[in-house]
């Protein structure tokens, strides 16, 4: 059974003005895909192709114009927003800016627990400490502030915040873009390990085709709000059909091949 199934999801960004007609500024075309637990889905595309918007629609930050999202066969809509908050968690694009500088990391991690669960203070603390250890930090990091951590550690905190409610799906918006090479492979390893251990579904947006090819099972390629091509990673990278995909894969291959000669 599919963990997530998306059917004809559309979204329109409009500017409302009092006198003239509604102006459509962005159109996210019908998107449909599905994937199973333990699989990784990558979304690739240009800047401004609506990748982040699609991620936000999945998490429920934006409401779609039409279309349905099913999770384990149950439709997600406004009536069961609580379930969605527990099961689909997001890692935001800029880890540095998405952590509140005025709160300790413990407080940041406690917030989703306080809002979504009925745990008491003691249980919350023990869960926070457990999650911190899970992502490879120490329990003392609970008392730290954002500025005391390095980039890689911040990335781990963002991951911990997504993991703490024990979700089924994690949606990550460019999780590896701001990281340095050696720290990046740590983060990639950590994510793959957690995915193996917990059976997470993982949706991520990335520009780095090397990583996409390495960790994802399925790829969606987007351009100007439309899905151009989607399917198995292996198939798309080896036999791209669309012109744009070809260009994308070729330019990546050109980079890889030239330095092998």
């Amino acid at each position, binding site marked *: 059974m599919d963990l997530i199934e998306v059917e004809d999801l559309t979204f329109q960004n409009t500017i409302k003005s009092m006198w003239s007609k509604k102006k459509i500024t962005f159109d996210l075309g019908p998107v449909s895909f599905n994937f199973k637990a333990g699989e990784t889905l990558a979304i690739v*595309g*240009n*800047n*401004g192709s609506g990748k982040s918007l699609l991620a936000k629609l999945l998490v429920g930050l934006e409401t779609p114009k039409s279309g349905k999202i099913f999770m384990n066969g149950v439709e997600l809509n406004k009536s069961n927003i609580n379930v969605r908050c527990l099961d689909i968690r997001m890692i935001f694009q800029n880890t540095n800016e998405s952590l509140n500088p005025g709160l300790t990391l413990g407080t940041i991690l406690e917030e989703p627990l306080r809002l979504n669960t009925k745990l008491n203070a003691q249980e919350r603390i023990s869960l926070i400490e457990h999650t911190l250890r899970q992502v490879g930090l120490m329990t003392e990091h609970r008392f730290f502030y954002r500025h005391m951590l*390095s*980039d*890689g*550690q911040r990335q781990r905190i963002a991951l911990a915040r997504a993991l703490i409610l024990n979700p089924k799906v994690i949606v990550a918006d460019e999780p590896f*873009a701001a990281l*340095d*090479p*050696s*720290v*990046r*492979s*740590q983060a*990639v*390893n950590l994510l*793959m*390990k957690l995915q193996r251990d917990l059976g997470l579904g993982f949706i991520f947006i990335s*520009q780095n*085709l*090397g*990583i996409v*090819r*390495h*960790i994802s099972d399925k790829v969606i390629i987007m351009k100007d709000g439309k899905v151009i091509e989607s399917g198995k*990673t292996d198939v798309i990278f080896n036999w791209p059909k669309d012109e744009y995909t070809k*260009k*994308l894969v070729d*330019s*990546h291959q*050109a*980079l*890889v091949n*030239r*330095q092998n000669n």
Partner: protein
Amino acid sequence: MVLLDIKNLTLEIDISGGWVKALDKINMVIHEGQIHALVGESGSGKSLIVKAIVGALPVRWRITADRMTWKGQNLLTMSVKARRKIIRKDISVIFQNPINSLDPLLTLGQQLKEMLPTDKLTKTWFWQRNAEKQGLAIKLLHKVGIKNHQICLNSYPHQISNDVVQKFMIAMALASEPKLIIADDPTRGMEVIAKTQILKLLSRVNQVRNMSILFVSHDLLAISNMASYMTVLYCGQTVESGELQQLRKRAFHPYTQALLDSAPSFRKDLPPKSPLTSLDGTIPTLYHLPIGCRLGPRCPRARRECVAIPQIRRVHTHFYSCHFPLHWKAK
């Protein structure tokens, strides 16, 4: 011909009472027509080197070097005016983060025209000069592949998409027809197609006009594509430098090897979803620098001797500084 020659460049920064060596004995030689890559993670002092070359560092920081010359002229002892003249004429920098390094209050056209050197202009009357400047600016934009020049020249930096601004920065750098272009992370956060365009553009500039490029980045894929010579930095120390082909084939320093391994596209035999090799830990901050070899605490091959700073050793054109290099037995 040697353009830029740096030997034992050391930069000390005063942080809360103590002087810390942010750069520790950097060596670098750039020849004419060469593309030289400078690789390092953030916080390793890449941008500090760039700023030290163009002299954009605060006066209170201590810069010392055995040698820092531009075509034989010593950059450190010359007057500020003379140095600025050299940098205006021969060196131009494409700074990191183009949108932040442009003036938000001026249109791109105004900024580009300001960059044009006055001795290139032939006309004397001001209306002729303006027309000539406009013509030159449009030509430059076409050179870097911006087609709708009128929109570009008339808009402000925030109105234009990121990769076009990056190309525009390259156009600005080309305006004075320099001998050396320093590109500080020009492909950061770009999608693949725009990235290949910019790389092609830079290598074309290198081939057609014989300009040298100092390519500063941590994107190994981009670097191995165009550069011929590579210097690897870690925490302000030069770890290894040599011909790119040689480095890729046989890296002596564990850090270089870790960097090469961290890019999954480098290895074709890697099965999907297998764990990547990586070093534990992160780069230390300036407040907590380890003594001796700064990679020490993270290095898988570290031993007791590593608390002493390793000497630079040499195999042909390949320099490295490590007590226990990889491929040790193979030699």
